[in-house]
Structures are given as structure tokens and as C-alpha cells.
């Protein structure tokens, strides 16, 4: 495992930690989700290029397609939250009182 792979896996872990911790905005966690998808895309493309297996480039392309769908649904939820509460603060989401 070369140091570049180690850095990309570290970038994925940092994004994962950023997504799991909430501060005030909800869209910041969606950004960290996008970062996770991007690091997975980079790692899959590098693996496909370095093992000389170009057929494996299908996987990052399809990953990008489904990440785009997920982003769209996440942003739609954000917009509906923002329409109800004015901003996308996380402490506004208190309907489930437990």
C-alpha cells in the first residue's frame, strides 16, 4: 500500500468523522458525504488505472451516478426543512422528542 492510498483512505475517514458530528448546519454533513463519495471515486479510479484493468472504470462511473441521486434527494430534504423552519439548523429538528 503506497502512501498515496493511505492519504486517500485517511481523507475518507476524515470526511466520515465530519459527517457524523453535527455542529449547527445540516448541509455541512451533506458536504462531508460528498467528500466521502469523491474519495471513493478517486481510489477506485486509481486502482483501475494501476492494475491495468480498464473494465473496472465502470464502478466509479456508476458510483458517481448514484451519488448524484443521493445528493439530489438530500438537498430536496434540506430545502423542505428550510421551507418549514427558515434555516437548516439541526436543533430545529426536534419533532421526535426522545
Amino acid at each position, binding site marked *: 500500500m503506497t502512501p498515496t492510498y493511505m492519504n486517500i483512505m485517511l481523507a475518507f475517514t476524515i470526511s466520515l*468523522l465530519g459527517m457524523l458530528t453535527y455542529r449547527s448546519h445540516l448541509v455541512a454533513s451533506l458536504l462531508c458525504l460528498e467528500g466521502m463519495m469523491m474519495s471513493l471515486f478517486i481510489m477506485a479510479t486509481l486502482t483501475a488505472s494501476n492494475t491495468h484493468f480498464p473494465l473496472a*472504470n465502470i464502478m466509479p462511473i456508476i458510483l458517481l451516478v448514484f451519488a448524484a441521486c443521493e445528493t439530489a434527494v438530500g438537498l430536496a430534504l434540506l*430545502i423542505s426543512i428550510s421551507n418549514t423552519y427558515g434555516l437548516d439548523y439541526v436543533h430545529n429538528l426536534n419533532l421526535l422528542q426522545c
Partner: protein
Amino acid sequence: MAYILFTLSVLLVMGFVGFSSKPSPIYGGLALIISGVVGCVIVLNCGGVYMGLMMFLVYLGGMMVVFGYTTAMAIEEYPETWGSGLEVLGGLLVGLMMEVMLVLWVLSLDEAVVVVVGFSDTGDWVIFEGEGSGLIRGDSIGAGALYDYGRWLVVVAGWTLFVGVYVVIEIVRGN
């Protein structure tokens, strides 16, 4: 420059720390765009020309633009940047310091130490072309195989995108 790929991956991690330390989302989007550019150059350095172009077009040009104006809709009056407040600055500095110490540790490994991670016989990757038709090889042939071997996958992904658009419309409609 010998270790250009390693340097770019270090810059990628620093960009990721920049938006994972959770500033206001408009600054997080900026850090994600910079990280995306660095990641695309990493992909280009390893010979993935088509994948790098697709990442620029689809990811940065499509999804980040959508993130940009959605964030502009749901933002407060005084967005907090990396320098305002101790939480964001502390997270950023801890992440950068972790990366710097990791880089120093990796650079200090020599050939006598058998570790999983080392610089002993890597350097930068070199892409061997080989013989054969050398004009349209590389990443494009893999993306072209998506429409040949992966016909059903293309149909499923296209249908998923249609259903995704319908789901978005239903969510945003509200009542």
C-alpha cells in the same frame, strides 16, 4: 518533481480537513471544490484522462453548482469561517498537524524498515501502454465497455435517475 503524487494526496487530505472541521457551508463548499480539483489532478496523474474529465464535468460542474445555490438559499447573515471561533480553528489545526506528522513519519522510513507503508520501491506510478491500437486506449475503453457489457446497468442507472427526479419533486412539493 519526484513525489508529485504524494504531495497532491497530502493537499487532498488538507482540503478534506478544511471542510470536515465544519465551517459555514459556503466555506465548506469552497474547500470541497478545491479538494475536487486536487483529486482530479491526482486521477490525471495516473493516466485516467476520461475519469478526470468526468469528475470535473459531473462532480464539480454539476453537483457542486447545485450545492452552491442550495447553500445560498439556506445560509445565515454572518457565516463563520475558519478563523472565527475556536471550534472550527481547533479542528482545522488538529487535522493539519496530524497530516504533517504523518508525512514526516512516512518520509522518515527507509529501506531497512519493513513496514506496510513505505517509499522503498514506489515513487510515482508509470503507466505502461503496451502494444496494440494506441489511439483510443486507457480509461475511455472502460467507459465504453459500460454501454457494451453493462447494458442492463445503464438501463437501471437511468431509471434510477428518473425515479430520483420524481422523488425530489414529490419531496419539495410539500403538501
